[in-house]
């Protein structure tokens, strides 16, 4: 028998095309992680990876939902949306590839570095996507 470990769960709604409050979910998560006292570099990696995924849901998918679960040795961040899905994941993962609308680009988003940036900062990243149904990105960050 294993003892149940205490975890902390956070969840946030991400509103579509809400550029003003962009990044709120990841900034709140960041606050929680640093309060808990995780290593600053871990906090930073989690915050950056989550921010990119959160923004993708906001810009490309009309919003979605973020769920975070903090374990004693890792954190799992899941961003799920019911947007258009990603037809070619390999292409989307390429640095610089972007289908961001003009409005996003004008505001300084849409450089096509989001997904590569998540990959760079996460210990594990999984993309489940079905065209026409939506995308779920799951990010794992290990603490040590």
């Amino acid at each position, binding site marked *: 028998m294993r003892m149940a470990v*205490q975890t*902390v769960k956070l969840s946030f709604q991400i509103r579509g095309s809400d550029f003003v409050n962009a990044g709120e979910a990841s900034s709140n998560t960041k606050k929680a992680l640093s*309060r808990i*006292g995780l290593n*600053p*570099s871990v906090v*930073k990696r989690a915050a950056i990876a989550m*921010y990119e995924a959160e923004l993708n849901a906001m810009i490309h998918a009309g919003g979605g939902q973020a769920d975070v679960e*903090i374990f004693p040795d890792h954190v799992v961040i899941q961003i799920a949306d019911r947007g258009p899905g990603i037809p070619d994941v390999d292409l989307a993962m390429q640095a610089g590839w972007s289908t961001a609308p003009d409005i996003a680009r004008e505001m300084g988003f849409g450089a096509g570095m989001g997904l590569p940036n998540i990959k760079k900062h996460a210990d594990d990243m999984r993309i489940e996507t079905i065209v026409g149904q939506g995308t779920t990105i799951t990010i794992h960050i290990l603490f040590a």
Partner: protein
Amino acid sequence: MSIHHSVQLNRSLCVGCTNCIKRCPTEAIRVRNGKAKIADERCIDCGECIRACPHHAKSAVMDEFSALDQYAYTVALAAPSLYAQFGTPATRVMVLAALGNAGFDDVFEVAVGAEIFSRHASIWLHDALKKGKRPLISSACPVVVRLIQMKYPNLIDHLLPFDAPMEISARLAREQAREKTGLPDEQIGVFFISPCPAKRTAVVSPISSDNSYVDGVIAVSEAYPLILARLEKLESHQVASFANRHLAGSSGVRWGYSGGEALSLDTERYLAVDGIHNVIAILEEVENERLKDIDFIEANSCTGGCIGGPLTVANRFSGKSRQRGYIMAARDLARKHPGAIYPAGQVQIDPWKKELEPNEALKLDKDIFKALQKYEQMEKITADLPGLDCGACGAPDCEALAEDIVRGEASETFCIFKLKERLRLVAAQMSELEQEMNRHLEDDEEESDEAGEAVQ
């Protein structure tokens, strides 16, 4: 980590209002038993609470002029922001001469240290940028450095790793005094005339070395009336005695306000942010790697930069306009008499030897299991509190009270709404008890009535 603090509370003046707790950028203040209390490990000596307190209960503990008596020879270090306190017809040399007349044997400009700093920092910065480190952050404001140690430890190695201009000037002033007088170091007193309490903290508990070259830090506001009185009585030979001395160039004098430091670093891609709450917003962006197109960030805790320091006298808008006058005059001087400017390029300085430590005061617990538990509890308590952030409990907002409860430093009934709820509950229970008691009494009466009837 125990550091000395120059910002202190005068308990007898504190009325326990909530003005300061709401303004403190690190949530370091709580009101308990009707009086404010500063948590030492969280205070970064920004002085925001001094500005916020309408009862003047928060003040800076600074050195006084009487401290000069301990030394055989004294030198005053003039902060660049000191000049801006005095308007025309005062000139920089006049302010320096009047400062000297206020009781010092000699004066030295911190603006000189600033120019030396800039030369070295500029070379170091362009080297670091080439290695891909970006953006680099100014380390001249001690409040910002302490903030980074506590809230943004990831950014510690983005700081320009050089002693602040105050230390550089203090070292030079001390060397000069030693040469001139032959006195040993202990008998030479170097005093910084400071716009803020943070600089005194940085002298008593230096940021990256064991000892400061400065012996005492006197508030600009303390020196102001003395300088003003002597400005009026200044004699021409006193001003003339500065004619054969080196003065700082315009780029050093420009450090007095926000943007001055950045302008001397040879990069167009800089950002100057002032006001501690704005600084926090920008550092957040930097930590999240959203300002990678910026080479250098100048961050000043005070709005407007040091001319807006909590211990300055002049209004910071007129201060800025005056400072511009001093800068123009310095530029003119350099053009007409290049030899009059301090040869900053000849002075060597070294980067910090010691790596700065993070300050872990914000952590909930060292043990991750306990920290997770506490966080979970904190969330629950926060959700249960009214969310009005009224401050009546003595904490800056409901979340902070929840944190205090979890840390075992407060209880839920500190919240007046929770207390009211509890009172209502107790009152309801009381009235229930009362009714029950009345019922018993009535029963008793009936019984005794019956007994009475029986007797009749």
